[in-house]
């Protein structure tokens, strides 16, 4: 949903980091995007290409790793994927806040991040 503004922030952060290290060229940028964010990888790629044009990032490789949504159960200690509503009418599995193991209410602990994990630069 906000790929344009978020990718702008990503590109600005990378360029700032590159400037501080006097890099000549950015070779590769690795992102981790949580599945619970509203960021679509395809659109991030599109904006990345547009925004890096005529910068030292132009032509750099963009690697996007998606991190799963993770919940933790305060009752039984389960940590992992959501429990989903398995209803064919909904076509896509709908996540719920019930623990897949004991049905208690879980807390969301992962999958909401948008990390710049690694940058490869030519100095």
């Amino acid at each position: 949903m906000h790929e344009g503004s978020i990718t702008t922030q990503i590109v600005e952060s990378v360029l700032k980091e590159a400037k501080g290290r006097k890099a000549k060229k950015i070779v590769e940028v690795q992102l981790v995007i949580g599945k619970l964010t509203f960021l679509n990888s395809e659109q991030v790629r599109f904006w990345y290409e547009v925004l890096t044009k005529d910068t030292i990032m132009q032509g750099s490789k963009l690697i996007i790793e998606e991190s799963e949504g993770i919940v933790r159960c305060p009752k039984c200690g389960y940590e992992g994927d959501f429990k989903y509503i398995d209803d064919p009418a909904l076509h896509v599995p709908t996540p719920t806040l019930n623990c897949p193991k004991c049905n208690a209410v879980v807390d969301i602990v992962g999958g909401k991040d948008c990390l710049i994990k690694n940058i490869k630069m030519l100095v």
Partner: protein
Amino acid sequence: MARVKDVVKAEEGEVFDVELEKDVLKANREIAQENRTFLQKHGVRAIDIMGAIGAGKTSLIEKLVDKLKSRYRIAAFKGDLTTTIDAEKISRHNVQVIAINTGKECHLDANLVRKAFQKLSLDSIDLLFIENVGNLICPAEFPLGSEKRVVIISVTEGPYMVVKHPFIFMDADVVVINKIDLASAMDVSVENLKADVKRINPKAKVVPTNCRTGEGVDNVIEALGL
């Protein structure tokens, strides 16, 4: 903030790796946390009101203000792309309202809310309603620092509003189902909508209302612990 884990000095012309671990969404979450601390320090309870366009966010706030203003000193932030129409509606109930015009953005963010604090004397209020821009998607990504989040839907939006937008309901403390007087005309089951919320977020309290007459609004107050 950027956290550099490993730095390897490179020779001229060498490619080297920078492990950055910088989270670009974290900035908003951090400001939200600052807002939360700031509100607590001033003894102000803040409630987010989120929902689609026309669901009844403003009407709900108007009714809540009328019922609560003898017990609380209330103010409201009203987010909209343009206009102060809704802000004026709420201010007719004799509470301070600050309109936050986002211009083109589809949601409020923690920074805009922090900016709006400057227009408000927080020591002269104890309850703040923050009405978000009409949208069931983007506000879920941007916490503002409130104590509780309310999502309001109405039966006129059809029977599938909850299952189509699961993420915002996961964040909700209270879900209001509005315009129940129109349910049979719309052929929408309030009970089914309620069950959909409970399936996705069993800890959310679900309250049916008719915000034109005020029916059910006392239950919203109770659900919010006000």
